[in-house]
């Protein structure tokens, strides 16, 4: 009897173990779509706060549609996107997905994104900025992605410091002091001299980096070759000068604690307070960074709300920006295209969205409406949309995105930094940058 029992037990255990070994092979077929049931659009992105309001507004406007958000961490996002788009058996594979400007071109130029040329006339009618449309086009000029936002950059500054060191806090007059790179440099030197080095014109040379790179006339890659735009060389000189003369406040990282403390006059180097006159940053910095951090929420520094203003920057740049595209393999293409159409070309919807999100829209028309009679207490009564609109129209960013900007920018920043702090000559830095590009991109980007 015991033997039989043992035999049964052994059998059960073996079966159990075998089952546990290959568990997970259960049927996972998605339920067949009922025609009456809700339609679902799966939207992939890397920022919950950015996409949540869009989902909500879209579902309110289209009661039959459910927007399913799939949010991944920004660092892993491009790779996960590559994986899910190239073998899309995953039921969560996106119908629509968000791409950051630094890698958007990679997907736009591939056959993983669907043709959206049916939307191009609508985009024109909605007054979408030309550069937003151009970056959304592949190398043959087919529209494949659009954006609901536009991110031109300006020069934010502190009114009180401007009054003290530039003699005025009027945006137009302050612009006179920063209207081009030479004037900007002179002003930087003046402020530094007048204040005995305690006031810097920018928080960090990192700001210059993005302003200069994203105001280039050409991208890192031109005809399959590494292309070093004039702005890149100018940026190297500027960075070195700003570092050596301490025109920057040496903040090591943007968007962190030390950086925020500069906004409350509470940033100290070696025990001495270092003041920052201005910041070269885009539209979104206003609601995302300045407004929340100008108040001493942690009880340090002083409240500078109302002491801010924005004017045009020495160069017309953009910084960041998200484009959205349709997955070519989506089983839900019609819905997906409709989603993009609403979110990026429907002026009324976009106006609503921009108000909820506090975004600067990609549509000229929407921005004009948003700007009407608006005045920001934070900016001392200034209407930021007037400046934003001017910035948006001046931007000529059509050609400056390459598929590998996220890597190329980093490789360059390494060398830029080494040159700026004096560890390398300019020639050596450029040479090392070229070698690094050649090493990583072999025959994809040719290097002279």
């Amino acid at each position, binding site marked *: 009897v015991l033997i039989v029992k043992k035999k049964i037990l052994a059998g059960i255990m073996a079966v159990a173990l075998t089952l546990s070994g290959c568990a997970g092979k259960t049927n996972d077929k998605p339920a067949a779509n009922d025609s009456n049931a809700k339609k679902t659009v799966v939207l992939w992105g890397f920022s919950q706060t950015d996409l949540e309001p869009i989902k909500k507004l879209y579902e309110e406007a289209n009661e039959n549609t459910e927007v399913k958000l799939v949010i991944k961490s920004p660092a892993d996002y491009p790779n996960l996107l590559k994986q899910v788009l190239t073998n899309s058996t995953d039921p969560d594979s996106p119908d629509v997905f968000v791409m950051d400007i630094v890698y958007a071109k990679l997907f736009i130029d591939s056959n993983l994104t669907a043709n959206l040329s049916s939307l191009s006339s609508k985009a024109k009618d909605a007054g979408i900025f030309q550069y937003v449309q151009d970056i959304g086009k592949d190398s043959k000029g087919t529209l494949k992605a659009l954006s609901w936002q536009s991110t031109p950059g300006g020069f934010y500054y502190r009114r009180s410091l401007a009054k003290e060191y530039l003699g005025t806090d009027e945006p137009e007059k302050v612009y006179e002091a920063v209207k081009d790179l030479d004037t900007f440099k002179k002003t930087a030197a003046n402020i530094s001299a007048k204040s005995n080095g305690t006031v810097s014109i920018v928080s960090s040379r990192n700001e210059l980096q993005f302003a200069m790179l994203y105001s280039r006339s050409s991208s890192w890659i031109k005809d399959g070759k590494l292309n070093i735009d004039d702005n890149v060389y100018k940026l190297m000189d500027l960075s070195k000068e700003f570092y050596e003369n301490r025109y920057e406040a040496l903040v090591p990282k943007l968007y962190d604690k030390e950086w925020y403390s500069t906004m409350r006059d509470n940033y*100290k180097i070696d025990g001495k307070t270092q003041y920052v006159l201005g910041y070269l940053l885009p539209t979104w910095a206003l609601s995302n960074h300045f407004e929340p951090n100008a108040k001493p929420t942690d009880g340090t520094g002083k409240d500078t709300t109302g002491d801010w203003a924005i004017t045009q920057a020495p160069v017309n740049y953009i910084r960041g920006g998200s484009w959205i595209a349709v997955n070519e393999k989506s089983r839900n293409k019609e819905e997906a295209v409709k989603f993009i159409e609403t979110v990026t070309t429907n002026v009324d919807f976009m106006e609503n969205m921009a108000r909820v999100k506090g975004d600067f829209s990609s549509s000229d028309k929407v921005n004009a409406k948003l700007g009407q009679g608006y005045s920001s207490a934070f900016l001392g009564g200034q209407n930021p949309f007037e400046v934003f609109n001017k910035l948006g129209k001046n931007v000529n960013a059509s050609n400056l995105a390459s598929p590998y900007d996220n890597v190329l920018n980093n490789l360059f920043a390494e060398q830029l930094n080494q040159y700026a702090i004096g560890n390398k000559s300019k020639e050596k830095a450029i040479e090392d940058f070229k070698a690094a590009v050649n090493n990583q991109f072999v025959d994809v980007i040719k290097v002279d």
Partner: protein
Amino acid sequence: MKVKTIKMPTRSKIARGKLNFDRYGYLFIFPYVFGLLTFIAYPILYTIFMSFTNLRGLLPDYKIIGLSNYTRLLHDDFFWRSFLNTWKLWIPNFILQIGFALVLGALFTDIRLKIKGGSFFRTIFYMPNLITAASIAILFEAFFSFPNGPVNQLLTQIGIMKKSFQFFTNPTATSLLVSFIQFWMWYGQTLIIVYAGMVGIPSSLYEAAMVDGSNSRQTFFKITLPMLKPVIIYILITSLVGGMQLFDIPFLITDGIGSPDQSIMTMTMYLYKHGFTGINNYSYAATVAVGQFIVIMVCSIIIRWLLRDKDSKSVRKGA
């Protein structure tokens, strides 16, 4: 035990197929073998296979291109630099680690000192190993941050430095810092192994030495160290294998790019850079992985050979 009283079936019965327990054995080991083949053997073989192809980019189509990835690897300055970087990070970390472990181990096992609470301290020293690398990286970044990190504040306030120092723009400082973190995370582990090795040394040897009038230092160098040699070799090899695969701390502390100027780009980070950024050059990343494997193997063999027990044969004969 009851089992002993059971009359087991005879061989002939099993052979007739009625009660064949042998076959169940295969079922029992199946899950493990299945896991081994799927998650270990297959990836290794596939990696080796990939290194002979040109697989890369968004789409999974590739050609077999023979050894050209390997010729590239041999002449790849960046790879060899990452190899040197890895050693540069590992050596100071290992010296500190084994040094601390030996000294602490000797103190804890010293029969003359009889330190109390040894296990308490061993637990404390092991603690850093329990924190995830990500937290440690963030912690140290904050500690050494410019210009107002605690370390900078301390050093300027007590007057060692006049100005705050940017640790993370200086290659030497960054690499020493990474070495230090590695040491700090792992010396507890090493200490436990060393301690176990020291406890295993027969106390009669120490007693004999005491009777002969040797002091602590003499017993350490003449008895403890020689007796510990196999343990030290074990630590050396495992630490080397782990150290050559170093990834998390340098990756996290430099935002994944090995800055400043790629000075702390380790071999695994180099692999990651090729495989998972830019053009996703999977085949070359696979080649780097195989290269890394070969390098680690060669180094281990060399170390074993250098530290081989030259008179082990005679000892064995004597025993």
